[in-house]
């Protein structure tokens, strides 16, 4: 009887998988055409993308960059589709610096921006050597002097005052935090008072850097300056408010609650109007607080109230055990906050803080309604009102949107990196 049983003695060679299960076809099938409805949606989506691109790309690449007015653009285009981007090249300086900042001084804000990168780096990326923070500490004064110019005594005095305050604080805070803080403030004011007289006496006719008035600032530079200043001021203020709201001392708690709730209950634009319009009534005509300063104060107060609530959320999210742990180690209130509570609470609050920061940065465009010429103010006012460029909307506003998107997207990417970097739990 013949042995009919079959035993395979060698492996079959591998065969290529079916064409529908590999590569691009498989990817298309699973992701785009898995079912009939999905396939239809895919086709519809592609059609929409095609429509958008077919509209935008010729406009973008067929654009005109070198004419000197809208009517010339139209002559060049002869009815073809194309953007009139000449407005961006012709008014570039106005879009970035405003229309009154002296042209020959553009290097000063530019330099301030470059230095900002160095000053911000050690704050943003804490792997960098800590000594770089020294530069961060003096940066605000350098930047002020670069942008506004004038006698160097002003930023120097301001710096000396802060330095004095810091030294006094260091000296006393180890034994008594409150005494250190109050003494620091007092020292700063004494130094500023003395410095103010010295600056007035020593002010020369021709300062090293030509002074530039706040009214002359404008363009995207103004947005950036307002954004950076207000964010960096409102975070410390927000932390203080959040802690104040949690305080067991009724007066401090009451003041903080009233402040936060009042500010949150009022639209920013109202505060800006108060800053620009109402305050003028309270001062004599020649002595008003600088407009830029008024706006900075108002935006800072506004966003610090929001940041305070974000941080309060972070504080509330910490388990009670953390507070008790700090107490059981024998730490007093400032130490417990600085070493145990705030590092954790702030970490939890990062997304919320970044949210407020991005919102604040975009809100800086609101200053255009109180006749400050930020980027949007420049576009809506002088540029669209010039006889050459009246009627160019898409190009200008698209450009503004692009600038803001770049900055805001950068902030959001940074915050995501920060969250990953700080993740210490085992989720």
């Amino acid at each position: 009887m013949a042995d009919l049983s079959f035993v395979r003695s060698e492996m079959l060679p591998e065969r290529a998988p079916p064409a529908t299960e590999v590569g691009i076809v498989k990817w298309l099938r699973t992701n785009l055409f898995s079912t009939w409805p999905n396939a239809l949606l895919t086709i519809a989506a592609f059609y929409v993308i095609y429509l958008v691109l077919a509209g935008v790309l010729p406009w973008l690449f067929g654009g005109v960059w070198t004419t000197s007015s809208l009517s010339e653009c139209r002559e060049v285009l002869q009815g073809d589709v194309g953007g009139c981007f000449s407005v961006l090249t012709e008014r570039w300086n106005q879009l970035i610096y405003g229309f009154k900042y002296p042209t020959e001084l553009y290097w000063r804000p530019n330099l301030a921006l470059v230095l900002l990168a160095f000053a911000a780096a050690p704050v943003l990326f804490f792997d960098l050597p800590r000594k770089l923070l020294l530069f961060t500490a003096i940066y605000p004064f350098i930047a002020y002097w670069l942008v506004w110019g004038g006698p160097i005594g002003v930023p120097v005095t301001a710096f000396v005052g802060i330095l004095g305050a810091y030294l006094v604080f260091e000296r006393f805070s180890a034994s008594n935090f409150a005494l250190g803080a109050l003494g620091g403030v007092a020292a700063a004011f004494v130094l500023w008072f003395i410095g103010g007289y010295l600056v007035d006496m020593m002010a020369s006719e021709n300062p090293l850097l030509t002074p530039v008035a706040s009214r002359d600032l404008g363009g995207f530079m103004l947005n950036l300056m307002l954004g950076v200043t207000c964010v960096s001021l409102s975070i410390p203020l927000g932390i203080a408010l959040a802690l104040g709201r949690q305080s067991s001392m009724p007066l401090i708690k009451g003041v903080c609650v009233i402040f936060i709730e009042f500010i949150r209950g009022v639209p920013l634009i109202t505060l800006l109007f108060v800053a620009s319009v109402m305050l003028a009534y309270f001062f004599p005509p020649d002595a008003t607080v600088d407009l830029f300063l008024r706006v900075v104060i108002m935006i800072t107060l506004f966003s610090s109230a929001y940041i305070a609530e974000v941080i309060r959320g972070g504080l509330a999210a910490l388990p009670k055990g953390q507070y008790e742990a700090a107490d059981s180690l024998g730490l007093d209130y400032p130490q417990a906050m600085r070493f145990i509570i705030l590092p954790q609470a702030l970490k939890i609050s990062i997304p919320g803080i970044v949210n407020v920061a991005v919102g604040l940065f975009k809100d800086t465009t609101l200053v255009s309604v109180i006749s400050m010429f930020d980027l949007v103010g420049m576009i809506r006012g002088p540029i669209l009102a010039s006889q050459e460029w009246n009627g160019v909307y898409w190009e200008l506003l698209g450009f503004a949107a692009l600038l803001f998107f770049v900055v805001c997207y950068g902030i959001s990417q940074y915050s995501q990196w920060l969250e990953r970097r700080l993740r210490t739990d085992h989720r």
Partner: protein
Amino acid sequence: MKKSAFLGALTVASIAASAAVAQDASTVDQIKERGKLNCGVTTGLVGFAAPDANGQWNGFDVGVCRAVAAAVLGDANAVEFVPTTGKTRFTALASGEIDMLARNTTWTFSRDVDLKFEFVGVNYYDGQGFMVAKDLGATSAKELDGATVCIQTGTTTELNLADFFRANDMSYEPVPIETNAEAQQQYLAGACDVYTTDASGLAATRATFEDPSAHVLLPEIISKEPLGPLVRHGDNEWGDIVRWTLNALIAAEELGVTSANIGELGASAGANPEINRLLGTEGTLGEMLGLDAEWAKRAIMAGGNYGELFAKNIGEDTPIALARGLNAQWTEGGLLYAPPFR
């Protein structure tokens, strides 16, 4: 940058005490001491006030500011242009941030009386008009029965429009829009047959169209919008200076004094006594104002007489192409009528 806030607050406190004294000085003295006229203008309105690519302000309202600066300070460029929005303009003037406002402001009873301002005259007689596409075939606003109308909400133009259509027993369908920019887009896209706003605004808007000749402004003007410069109540000497500087520009056109022939006419007393008084070669008009004899001459030389300012900024040779219309001299059927210089 950040910490300077405190320093600023400190200096402010010290200045505040010293500056309280200065407030009593008259506006003219303050301007002379400052060396600059603070003039409120718009943040940008085609033809009336806008900075060019070099940051130089130009326009019809700007011309008035420059003329006043030339009369008072002798320098047409000694002006600090303070851009104001529709919302901030009156507080800027009332608080003393600006010395005068030349910002397309309609002279109304409540602004003059209740807000305590003084309109010194009218430099542009505006009024609400209609713009339609030529294809529509309408030649008069009375043929617009049943039309869709783009109209800015919350303005007096909305009320004027309703009145006009009711008075003529016609119906219309409003398309509410928020800003002039939106209106341009809507009108061009065909969302409405008619766009209505101030006639000067319509002309400026039409000038930006790809094919301006395809649109017409209808002849009817359905409201009164006299626009003029204004000052605060309470300093009549200053008000007089601004009023008569504006009148000097208007009178100069009537008398045929232009920036071209003013050097000749103002060199010595000529045959026309009114020209002589205006240009200071005769009489003491400048002294009465508290200025020197050549104040009006400088004001006219700053940008030309009224007609020249008009032609250069908004006249028929500019893209805006406004006809003189109501803004012609009274001798030519318009409303411009400067009181006599005597």
